[in-house]
């Protein structure tokens, strides 16, 4: 009987604490920047607005992507969060790397790890180029290594 009581309290408690909240899909593509504002092969810090559901709140917040134009209609957008522990990386033009201030991981312009403890390349946003509009989707985790 005590077992039954424990289970009746414990199982819902575990679900309550561990199962992610039921969530509606967030808006899919967001216009972040115009293609004409980007320079070839130069990562640009782009701040764009997105509606983000944070628990019970719907917040319009600024989000950041490091956007690089790699070809006429080709664009890569990196998440600014270091794949090590999630500190924000920034672009250092003088040595052409992304550097994380926490444990000095550095990444090449195409996001690959050059040095430091980061376990994998920078994560990338899904990108769609629509005319001159650069649209960003969800962040996809990069492969290990």
């Amino acid at each position, binding site marked *: 009987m005590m077992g039954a009581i424990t289970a009746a309290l414990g199982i819902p408690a575990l679900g309550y604490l561990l199962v992610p909240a039921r969530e509606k899909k967030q808006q899919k593509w967001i216009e972040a920047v115009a293609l004409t*504002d980007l320079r070839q092969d130069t990562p640009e810090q782009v701040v764009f607005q997105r509606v983000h559901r*944070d*628990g*019970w709140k719907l917040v319009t917040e600024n989000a950041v992507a490091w956007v690089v134009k790699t070809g006429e209609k080709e664009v890569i957008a990196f998440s600014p969060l270091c794949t090590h522990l999630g500190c924000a990386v920034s672009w250092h033009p003088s040595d052409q790397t992304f550097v994380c201030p926490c444990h000095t991981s550095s990444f090449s312009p195409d996001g690959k790890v050059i040095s*430091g403890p980061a*376990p994998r390349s920078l994560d990338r946003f899904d990108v769609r180029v629509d005319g001159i509009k650069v649209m960003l989707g969800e962040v996809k985790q990069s492969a290990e290594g």
Partner: protein
Amino acid sequence: MVKNVMDWVEDRTGAVSGVKHLLYEEIPGSSGWHQVLGSVAMFCFLVQFVTGILLALNYAPTPPDAHASLRFILTELTGGRLIRGLHHWGASMMIVVVCLHMIQVFLWGSYKKPREATWMLGVVLLLLTLGFGLTGYLLPWDNRAYWGTVVTTQITAKAPLAGPYILRLMGSDNGQIGVQTFARFYGAHVLLLPPLMMLLIGLHVFLVRRHGVAPAPVETAPAKKFYPGQVFKDTLAIFIMFSILFALATLARVPLGKIADPTDSTYIPRPEWYFLFLFQILKFFEGPLEIIGSMVLPGVAVGLLFATPFLDRGAAVKLRQRTFAIGIVFLAAIGWGGLTVAAMRSTPYKEPWQNFTAEEVAAVGAFRQAKCWQCHGVIPGDHKAGPNLADITIHEERDALVAHFKISAPDSGLRDLQLRQLATFMRKLDDESVGAIASAPGPVVGGAMLYMKSNCGICHSINGAGGKTGTPLNGVAKRRNRAWMEGHFIDPQKYSPKTIMPRYAFDAAGMASMLAYMETLKD
């Protein structure tokens, strides 16, 4: 009369004899100053308990209000700074005292039979104390809190198998932290940990009583009573500890930074000082080895602490003969100290004004030009006729502030635009940025005013604010020297043939301050 009341209380509750029993407990003749630390640690907890409740009575435990309510506590409530200071420094103090207590027990070998369980409970109490520190760190909801907790959650997320579940338990969704994480940390900090801590402290003290205070290997002096000798020593130690804490809380202001901003990539996260060594260890383990630094080493350390009474089962010996134990403490202290110093030295320090936009640095110049400092201090404790800007939050609308500037400093020579920019800047001040009004170097501030006057910001940007036609100016000073920059102002086309930048022939003083400003923009 008093005796009658006491007799009644004793008869109905047994309280009088209970207290007597506690006070007149026999302790070994060797007891003394080295055993005061346990009482001091318990008192630290009491201070945290009381100040924590006081803070909670004015605190809105949800972001972003958490930050605003704490700012309200600090700037508008009587004694708010003091209570927050006591709670903040009390946390550090408690860690120090708990560790000293543990080191004392370790050195004296007081964990030996029959006190193994007392020691192990003590290790749990140490972990709970660290848990308080970890969960409390997020609650101010400034950048320090936010980014520090991002790192914490990411470390635990790397635990094998359990990682994702721990992350869920902390209310974090794919690395993001938000209102749910906050609610869980707050809940743990004020609802879960305190009763658990009280229960275990009670058990710990019960076990101390049950086995008695650990005696020396050879007791020469006769046993004595806890009261009054040891009680006096404990009280004096508590008083000294509290005096230090109170001095810290009043003299060392704990700044509340800018509200947490997940997009602020200029912020460099650092954990609280007692976790810095762990943060530093993580630099040594890359890729798949990372788990060693983040989980295995701390796990082994805690495991060894738990196992200490079983690894060292020898008979009690004098402190002087415990060379091995002294060696371990010595090595641990060197290792911990070395890692902490290394972490501190690798923390790049930026003056708050180095993160300002040109408009904000120029506003500092306007503040100085209008001689606002004649009435307003900007450093805590600097008493002048008007309110000290380090102690208040400015709620006035921008236009009301501009009117105030015009009345108070009619001859400032500042244009309306500059006054509006000054007002905007004043409304954004926080504990960290307010000091910049006094600390930003004069030439740099002059350079920023010239920068604004020359409208450089139409084409160029500094710290993310400004136009995009020209090169962002952050980092220029890293690539170019002063002579190059000076030449470039005078004749831009000579240095960058294709540039559309016009010539700027500043006068000598103007050029000097402009270059001084440019030279601070290294990254």
